[in-house]
């Protein structure tokens, strides 16, 4: 008799535990544990719970919407840059990589990165990031001297000397200026109205801009671009082949990446 009582009790208990109908929606804990226990019984293809969208809105992690009034122009430029990459930039960079030893390419990459030091220093300063400003300055001095004009990167392994990289587009964003709209420039690639303004402002601070000879400064810039592309051959290709709608994919990558850079904690 006792045994039967016990069995009935146990069965009742199991039913209570297993049946989602007994859980109170208002009680989060009960709700949650039932979901965990019964997860395998719910058909995921019937599940229409889209709460994650609200969570993203709340956490402000949804991708910001950026207007695209120039979409026709942008799509044409996207095509243009795509062809430029496959017909010119990629083959040239590949040939360059085959000829120039990796050591030299790393040195050149370091040199150009160091040359951009003053731009990053100014932007850290304008954003009120005094610690980063000091660190960028220290890095610049250190790599220019001990790194022999920046060809070496002895600051590489010191996290303090590698603060997040700031540019004028980010500075303007910190000042509260929105993206404006999305735009793709020939050769230069994706940008926004704000980031384009920032790019021009940074350009004035670029030592290359102040070379007397235009041909020389274009030549030096070309070396910079080909050299840095030589480290990333295959990245553009794989990003493109992973995309179903490449234009939207690249636009979104740009917006997400910039948003992260702007919000980065210092």
């Amino acid at each position, binding site marked *: 008799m*006792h*045994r039967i009582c*016990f069995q009935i*009790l*146990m069965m009742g*208990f199991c039913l209570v*535990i297993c049946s989602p109908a007994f859980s109170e929606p208002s009680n989060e804990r009960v709700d*949650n*544990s039932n*979901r*965990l*226990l019964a*997860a*395998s019984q719910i*058909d*995921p*293809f*019937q*599940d*229409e719970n*889209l709460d*994650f*969208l609200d969570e993203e809105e709340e956490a402000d992690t*949804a*991708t910001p919407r950026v207007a695209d009034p120039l979409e026709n122009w942008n799509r044409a430029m996207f095509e243009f840059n795509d062809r430029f990459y496959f017909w010119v930039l990629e083959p040239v960079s590949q040939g360059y990589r085959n000829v120039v030893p*990796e050591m030299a390419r*790393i040195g050149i*990459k370091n040199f150009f990165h160091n040359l951009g030091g003053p731009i990053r220093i100014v932007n850290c300063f304008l954003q009120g990031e005094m610690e980063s400003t000091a660190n960028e300055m220290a890095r610049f001095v250190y790599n220019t001297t001990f790194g022999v004009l920046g060809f070496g990167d002895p600051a590489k392994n010191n996290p303090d000397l590698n603060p997040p990289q700031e540019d004028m587009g980010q500075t303007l964003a910190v000042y509260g200026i929105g993206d404006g709209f999305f735009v793709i420039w020939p050769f230069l690639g994706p940008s926004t109205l704000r980031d384009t303004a920032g790019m021009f402002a940074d350009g004035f601070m670029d030592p290359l801009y102040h070379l007397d000879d235009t041909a020389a400064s274009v030549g030096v810039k070309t070396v910079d671009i080909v050299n840095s592309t030589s*480290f990333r051959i*295959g990245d553009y290709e*794989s990003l493109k*082949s*992973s*995309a*179903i*709608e490449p234009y*939207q*994919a690249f*636009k*979104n*990558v740009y917006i*997400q*990446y910039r*948003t*992260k*850079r702007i919000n980065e904690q210092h």
Partner: protein
Amino acid sequence: MSISRIATVLLMTMTVLWAVPVFAESPMASLKKPVEEITKILQNSKMLTADEKQAQRDKIFEITRKTFDFVEMSKRSLARNWKSFTPQQRKDFSEVFADHLNNTYMDKVQNEYQDETVEFLSEEKLSEDKALVKSIIKRRTITVPVDYSVLLSDNVWRVYDVNIEGVSLIKNYRTQFDEILVKETPEQLIERLRKKTEITGIN
């Protein structure tokens, strides 16, 4: 049988039932193992014939299927569009999207990044069933931060989003699918993905 004995048994049963989620592996451990397995499989992937490559792929797919929650990834990429898909379409989409993700991932690891190493840095519990696992991929000249969002279901932590240098894979696909589904039906999108997986199947 006394009441106290019944109570004891009940209590024990309850403890066992409630304690089940506690036995799940840590989020980081449940990623480390498959990554190590995949690295092992990939170690001798130079100069493989097409058949051998396919065999290698199949082996790795088996692991990724357990590590990634492809249904959750599909749902999150389709977002509001999920509701306009029938359950059958949702299933078809999830399958073909999983194939697509596997293919693109495989193209990367099989062809190019032989000299990459993965380092797991930290894990952060966001809620009872969500966590973030941070890692870096080290290439010879650069390091790329990669964060995995993982979800606990059926007592296993599985990946539902990958964030590379601040770019969420799922949010990226979401904008693409949003754009496509303005003009096309769910069937057409599924067909488009199917065609793409056929083209990029092996190269």
